[in-house]
């Protein structure tokens, strides 16, 4: 399954509530991609409980490793590099992946590659479509809302980020107002599909030329709208609320992405992160970039938008090529910044 010149990277991801292991050949081809989700366990708490996430990771980690190697039909001896999410994420959760990766690297004398989680989300796209530089990536997840500019492999420049809540966080909070079960994002997306954006909710454009985001004002506006209606004895249809909220979020995300794509004259725009699974966002971006002839929009399939280890292996592949290595002092780093690796 692996010829002499092929490169095979094993990826491990445990930054939040998925224990994931994948094998990726030559940076682009998924050989195995196993994700053990804990979402059922965390549902009863209405969110991810860090201590419980860490406990599940310890229970799962070698099982998931074994399953991935089995699916790939390969052995550790064939593996050229072990890539693992170093951060950001929940520290206790990160430590399980990092220490499992270090034990494997030591046991088989294989290079170790510490990967930034958001770089992973961006590189999920490379498993679908080869990257063309310069490119722009819109990263939207439970913890992140960022516009990242890349002029080449391994070069990450954050040109815009959220100043308060991440988009995914705003979704979860609004879902709570609507009494929806955790995680709220998919519920709102579904409801929004059946409603009209009739409510006039604010859009935080911030100062001209800024690519930063802010969603806390929108979240408060939704809560106020609901409360005011309740006081008048009225009830706003959840579909209308969801559609109006989603329209505001998407309007800001799409408009800023289009502006940045133009200013930075990029060849590709990549959607990344868990919120990339949002149908409304996907459709709006597709509509908008149909009009931009020189820019290619790449959206990974849903299974690669949420946390997985194939995306971590994909970054590891590029690091391996560049000769970047981590050593056995690698640690979990919950606040890790995305850096320009080639400096």
């Amino acid at each position, binding site marked *: 399954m692996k010829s002499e010149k092929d490169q095979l990277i094993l990826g491990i991801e445990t930054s939040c509530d998925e224990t994931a292991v994948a094998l990726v050949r030559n940076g682009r081809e998924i050989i195995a991609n196993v994700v053990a989700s804990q979402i059922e366990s965390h549902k*009863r*708490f209405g969110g991810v*409980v860090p*201590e*419980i996430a*860490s*406990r599940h990771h*310890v*229970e799962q*980690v*070698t*099982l998931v*490793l*074994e399953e991935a190697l089995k699916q790939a039909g390969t052995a*550790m001896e064939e593996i050229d590099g072990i890539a693992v999410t170093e951060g950001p994420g929940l*520290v*206790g959760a990160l*430590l*399980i992946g*990092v*220490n*499992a990766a*270090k*034990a*494997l690297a*030591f*046991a*088989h004398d294989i290079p170790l590659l510490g990967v930034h989680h958001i770089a992973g989300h961006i590189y999920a796209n490379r498993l679908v479509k080869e990257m063309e530089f310069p490119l722009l990536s819109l990263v939207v997840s439970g913890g992140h809302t960022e516009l990242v500019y890349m002029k080449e492999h391994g070069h990450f420049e954050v040109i815009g980020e959220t100043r308060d809540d991440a988009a995914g966080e705003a979704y979860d909070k609004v879902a709570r107002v609507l009494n929806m079960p955790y995680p709220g994002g998919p519920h709102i997306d579904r409801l929004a599909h059946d409603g009209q954006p009739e409510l006039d909710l604010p859009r935080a454009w911030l100062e001209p030329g800024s690519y930063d985001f802010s969603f806390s004002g929108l979240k408060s506006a939704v809560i106020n709208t609901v409360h005011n209606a309740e006081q008048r004895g009225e009830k706003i249809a959840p579909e209308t609320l969801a559609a109006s909220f989603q329209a505001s979020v998407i309007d800001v995300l799409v408009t800023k992405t289009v502006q940045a794509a133009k200013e930075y004259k990029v060849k590709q725009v990549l959607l990344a992160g868990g919120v990339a699974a949002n149908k409304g966002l996907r459709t709006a971006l597709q509509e908008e970039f149909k009009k931009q002839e020189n820019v290619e929009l790449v959206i990974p399939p849903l299974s690669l938008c949420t946390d997985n280890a194939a995306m971590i292996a994909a970054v590891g592949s590029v690091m391996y090529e560049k000769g970047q290595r981590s*050593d*056995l*002092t*690698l*640690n*979990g780093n919950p606040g890790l910044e995305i850096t320009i690796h080639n400096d």
Partner: protein
Amino acid sequence: MKILSIDTSNYVLGIGLVDDTQVMGEYISNLKKNHSVRVMPAIQTLMKECGIKPADLDKIVVAKGPGSYTGVRIGVTIAKTLSWTLNKPIAGVSSLEVLAASSGRYFNGYLSPLFDARRGQIYTGLYQFSNGSIAAVYEDQLVMAADWVERLRELDAPILFSGNDLPLHRKVIQEALGDQAIMAEITEYNPRPAELAFLGRNRQDEDPHAFVPNYIRLAEAEAKWLESKKQQ
């Protein structure tokens, strides 16, 4: 039989390497420093100095708790991953039992090793050596130090207390037990990784996939959730 032992369950970081007839090497530190950064380099250095390659190992033994949740998980994750990927057996030993064995092998009485668990609580258990082997008299538990010593008063033999957190609870112990309480010397506060290795040597092999720490306690959120279900 070459055994690698790993203990990261508390501030003490211990790595041991033993074979049938000798303790080849030990690494011990007692520092409030990040275990995650230091364990693998310590294992690597010790094994390299002893001329042992990962594939040469015959068994991995790990201190499985109680202790710091994160600390125990680091050691257990490394141990179970090594066990699984090298296809070598794994065995777990109570972190308290290792401490008891490290200080009380020749003590004629009971052993109460302890780790502080904040707000007056301790992790402890009661152990005893007989014919050279150690056994639990009272199982490992999380308990108020004051309640524990009351319970020990009923015993008819001296009790040896040990552990780096002993100074925090010395007063409570001595007030309740007087001369019945013997305090280990400071040089015996650290659990010995070689002791861990030999304790684990004859323990039954466990399945690395199913191997998990002994936390003693449920996660707080889990405990609250179960409580709320009970009330419904």
